[in-house]
Each structure stands twice: as C-alpha cells, then as structure tokens.
C-alpha cells in the first residue's frame, strides 16, 4: 500500500512537471541556441540523434540496476547479513550471561 502511494505520488509529480512546463529553448543558453538554430536541418537532426543516444542507454542501465536492487531488497531484507548475525550472537551471549 505504501509502495503504491509513493508510486502514485511520483507519477503525479512527473506528469504535472511535464504538463505545466514551458519550452526549454536549449536550457536558456543563448550561444547554444543560436549556434544550433543557425546550423540548419542537418544540424538539428544530428543533435536530436545524439540526444536520443544519450537518453536511452543510461535510462535502461540505471533502471536495470534499480529494479535489481529492489528485487534483492524484497527477496531478503537484511536476512543473513553479518551485522544481524553479530547482533544475534551478541544477544545469545548476553542471555547466557544473565542465566
């Protein structure tokens, strides 16, 4: 339920950011915008291809890493880690001392 709520919140924030955003105009850099606009359609096409190439592989790579991490976390949340074992060992040792 908590996960569902956080997912819905993230989707809401993202869709509002997309819905209410204006044109980026090359992030406001006048020099970049002027040189990109002056290059003509060939330059625009090359830049679009470069941006797409920069966009998709990193998204896939990091989405893969995040999904893997979440699967690990849900499969074994903290079970069998050294710290837990040390804590358990410490707890049993203290029980023996008290008894």
């Amino acid at each position: 339920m908590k996960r569902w709520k956080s997912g819905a919140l993230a989707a809401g924030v993202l869709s509002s950011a997309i819905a209410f955003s204006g044109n980026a105009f090359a992030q406001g850099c006048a020099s970049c915008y002027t040189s990109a606009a002056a290059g003509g359609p060939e330059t625009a096409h090359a830049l679009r291809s470069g941006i797409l190439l920069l966009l998709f592989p990193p998204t896939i790579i990091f989405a893969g890493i995040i999904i893997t991490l979440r699967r690990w976390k849900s499969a074994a949340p903290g079970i069998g880690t050294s710290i837990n074992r040390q804590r358990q060992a410490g707890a049993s040792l203290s029980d023996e001392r008290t008894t």
Partner: protein
Amino acid sequence: MSVLSPISAADSGGGTPIFLSPPIGCDEAEFPILLRRYRLGLALFVAAIGMLFVGFSSAYVVRRGIPIYDAGTGGYSTDWEPLRLPIRLLLFNSCLLICASVAMEVVRRKTSAFVYPSETNGREVTLWLSASLLLGTAFLLGQGIAWHALVSSGRFLSTGARTAFFYVLTSTHALHALLGVLAVAAIASFGARISPARRYVAVDLTAWYLHAMTLLWVYLLCFLLFA
C-alpha cells in the same frame, strides 16, 4: 564450517601467504549475499564505463551529422572523411577477446568458493586461466597491430574527425580491457596463495568484467563499421 579463515603457508602449497587477515568475515550461508554485493559494485563500475562509451557514441553521431563552415567556398559541408578499417584484423581480434572471455567463464565455473583448486582440478583451472591470459594479451597486441596498420596507411590522429574517433574509441576500450587482463594475470600469479572464497570472488568479478568488455567491443565494432 567456516570457509573464510586465514590460510597458512602449508595450506597454500608452501608459498608465502599474502593476505593473512580473514578476507570476508562471513560463513558459507552468507557468502552468496556478499558475492552479490561485490557483483553490484562491479555492475556500477561497468555502468560508468558504459556511460563513457555512450557519451563517445553520441559525440560521434553529432560530429558526423553537423556541417562545418568551409572558409574557402563560403558554404557548409560535412567534414567526415572515408576510412578503410583493417576489418579482417579487427574481426580476428574480436574472436580472440571472445575466446578469452569464454576461457575465463570456464575458470569461473570450475572454481569453488570452498575448496582450494590444488585439491581438485588445479591443473585444469590453471590451464584455462593461462589460455584466457594469453588470448587477452593477444587481443591487445592485435589492437596495436591494427593501429600500426592505420598509421602505415597514412591515417593519423590528426587526419580527420572520423580517424580520431576510431583511435579514441579503440584505445579507451583497450585500456579498460587491459585492466581485465591485468586482473587475470594477478589471479594467475597470486590465486594459489589466497583463500578459496577470496579467489572465487576475484575470478567471478574478473570473468564478468571480461564479458562486459567483450560485449562492449562487439558493440564498438558494429558501431564503427555500420554507424
């Protein structure tokens, strides 16, 4: 059974032990979890390398498509010179790297995290490890021969953007592949003197790293030939 205890000189076949502290403080039940963490670290490192090459690829595509102002004619023209690559040599090098990766995978599958190789299949593992090392070194030498062939045909780093991209992409990949070959050499040199668990982690991570470098090279070759 504690498998990750410090090793003695007698256990390691008479050699001098080099890592006497317990390498990974865990037992058999915890080993897969710790191995997974090491693999995650490697995945992040490989992702960073991947990002570097994605950046190079993007720059390649943009540079190829953008027309350059020609002061002589007063117009714009695409300055992207033709480049004849030593394709056969590059394909042969690819085969060498793939074989090195396969040999390292065999080593990974034959290595145990709980038993010294000398007690079971040590000779076999050493042979596959040596094969991987030789093939990886041969790949790097082959790349050097490819660069020499290009230089001999008058293609230098300063010849043009396309030639420069070829040198930059292949040399950056070769540097990263060299890291993998050095790791294989380190395992071949010091592997018998460290604990089985530590050795397994080293073999596992090196094997996955070499696989990643092989995949990256296949992508780069396709990109350079067809893009």
